[in-house]
């Protein structure tokens, strides 16, 4: 039980950014405590004081966590229970109530506290300037446009950095493996992925045999990807290229599938 409690504590710490020295949750706790003292209206007290407190206690309760995980068969999403606390809403209500008549001062103090204790979302490394209306990397769209069949479907193997994007642009492009291979903790195995991404140098003979087994019409490689022997020696042609990628077409596979360009 103690172990489960500690797990919940770690989840909470990760959620609130404790190890990154983010302290928005301190603002939340202060506001919640203040509402415990100051909120007189019964229904507000039930919704903004008692409910979050009980939910917080539930979150740390090992028995509750065991039941939650057993019911949902999913331990990874336990942190979403913290969404029910609506930290921002309780904090905003508590802060505005706390400063009462001094709302201008209150706004400045609360705003400064949020800025100092929080982290601006647009500073995230995952956010970049959009290159097109799709919000996909321009080169991924360029590659997908080249691969896109006039009709039917094609199978293309692409480097890991394109895996997320190709099918967000065009679903007529099938892939022998997808995002599932890129999440290490999901622990999937795919021999073609091993040959494409894990090998320091692609062993062309066995690699092309695998691409044919998987029915790949196209192979997309990064220009700097080390290859034992050129793919063109194995029945592939250099079909197109972009700034960073070489797109090979397997003429034999294309004929077999009858869906190539």
């Amino acid at each position, binding site marked *: 039980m103690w172990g489960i409690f500690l797990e919940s504590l770690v989840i909470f710490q990760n959620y609130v950014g404790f190890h990154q020295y983010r302290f928005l949750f301190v603002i939340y706790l202060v506001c919640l405590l203040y509402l415990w003292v100051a909120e007189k209206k019964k229904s507000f007290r039930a919704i903004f004081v008692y409910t979050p407190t009980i939910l917080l206690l539930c979150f740390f309760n090992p028995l509750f966590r065991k039941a939650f995980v057993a019911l949902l068969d999913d331990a990874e999403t336990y942190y979403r229970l913290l969404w029910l606390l609506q930290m921002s809403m309780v904090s905003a*209500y508590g802060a505005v109530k706390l400063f009462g008549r001094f709302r201008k001062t209150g706004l400045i103090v609360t705003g400064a506290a949020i800025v100092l204790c929080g982290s601006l979302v647009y500073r995230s490394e995952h956010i970049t300037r959009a290159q097109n209306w799709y919000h996909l990397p321009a080169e991924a769209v360029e590659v997908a446009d080249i691969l896109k069949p006039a009709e039917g479907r094609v199978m293309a193997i692409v480097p890991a950095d394109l895996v997320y994007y190709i099918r967000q642009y065009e679903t007529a492009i099938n892939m022998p493996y997808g995002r599932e291979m890129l999440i290490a903790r999901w622990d999937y195995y795919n021999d073609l992925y091993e040959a494409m991404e894990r090998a320091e140098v692609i062993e062309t003979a066995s690699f092309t045999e695998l691409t044919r087994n998987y029915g790949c019409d196209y192979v997309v490689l990064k220009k700097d990807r080390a290859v034992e022997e050129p793919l063109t020696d194995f029945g592939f042609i250099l079909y197109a290229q972009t700034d960073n990628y070489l797109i090979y077409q397997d003429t034999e596979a294309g004929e077999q599938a009858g869906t190539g360009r």
Partner: protein
Amino acid sequence: MIQIMASVFWLLAIPFGIGLIPVHFLSERKKNPGITLLAGYLLMWAVFEVITVPAVLWIKYDNFQFVLRIFTAAAMLFAAAGIVVRYLGIARERSRNMYAKPLISYEKEYRPGIEAKTEWALFFIIVGFSLYMAVTRASFDGDDAYYVVQSLMAQQNGSMYKNLPYTGRSASLDVRHALAVFPMWIAFVAVQADLHATIVSHVVMPLILMPLTYLVFYEIAKILFAEKKENIPVFMIVMALFQLFGNVSIYTNETFFLTRTWQGKSVAGSFVIPMVFLLLLWIFDEKRKKGQDACFWIMLVCLHLTAGMCSSISVFLLVILLAVSAFCLMIVKRDIKAPLMLGATCIPSALYVLLYLLIK
């Protein structure tokens, strides 16, 4: 241009028309266009869930085409019914006065001074900045390879949940995701607006879902500060700042709200859960007259279906939140009837869980 008009039609006009039905049951003082839109979205999403889930489970081929036809007809019908209810006498004098009221209903008795106006301006600048960033910045999230591709497959292939989004291979039904059909609603909007589903997800959805969420916050603020209305813009600014600076980890609902706005789970965290707070505040409003507003109960039932549409886990979260809130309200209000009724609204969620367990 036609695409923009179609988007406005399906994302504003239709939900607003649908919202006129539940709002008909609302007492005069609570009626306003904001509530109408919120109620419309809840009812529309509930209808979408009810039509789409059976189609996913039991129609073998071209099931999205089926949903497209049926839901188009149903949405039009509901919106038309809403307009009929509003304009052709069923609503009568009571609802005819609705638009005599300004959008911000308290404006009648409360005229914001220069300070409050400045605060509102500041709030709108923050929200405008968020919307600008939503359009001009791309947010990478691995889950898009699943959800966005599901929407796109429905749009491009006309079928739902038949293929694995990561690879395109045929797949057995992934029940947990197949019951949460929010990506299919995005596909529906994409088809109707003749826009690529990825553009609808990444650009159009934030433009509608973010203001919709702030509308919920605003309605909550109106109740919390009914007697100190000058606090409303301050509350809204603090809320908006919390969203902007809430990225303390990748897990917070604030992070989801601004970086994964189009995903069902984000809608659950940022819209469905605050909506529970709003409905509870409405339902247990101490100033309410004896007869409860049927509108809120309809909205609560629809909220359960909306939660199911967003993600399977949000159904559980919603039930947990309602159970704890009902318990607390029962204690403080010494009233067992209303909490019991809250329990009764969980029937759609119970059916959802039952369905999930049966076909898992």
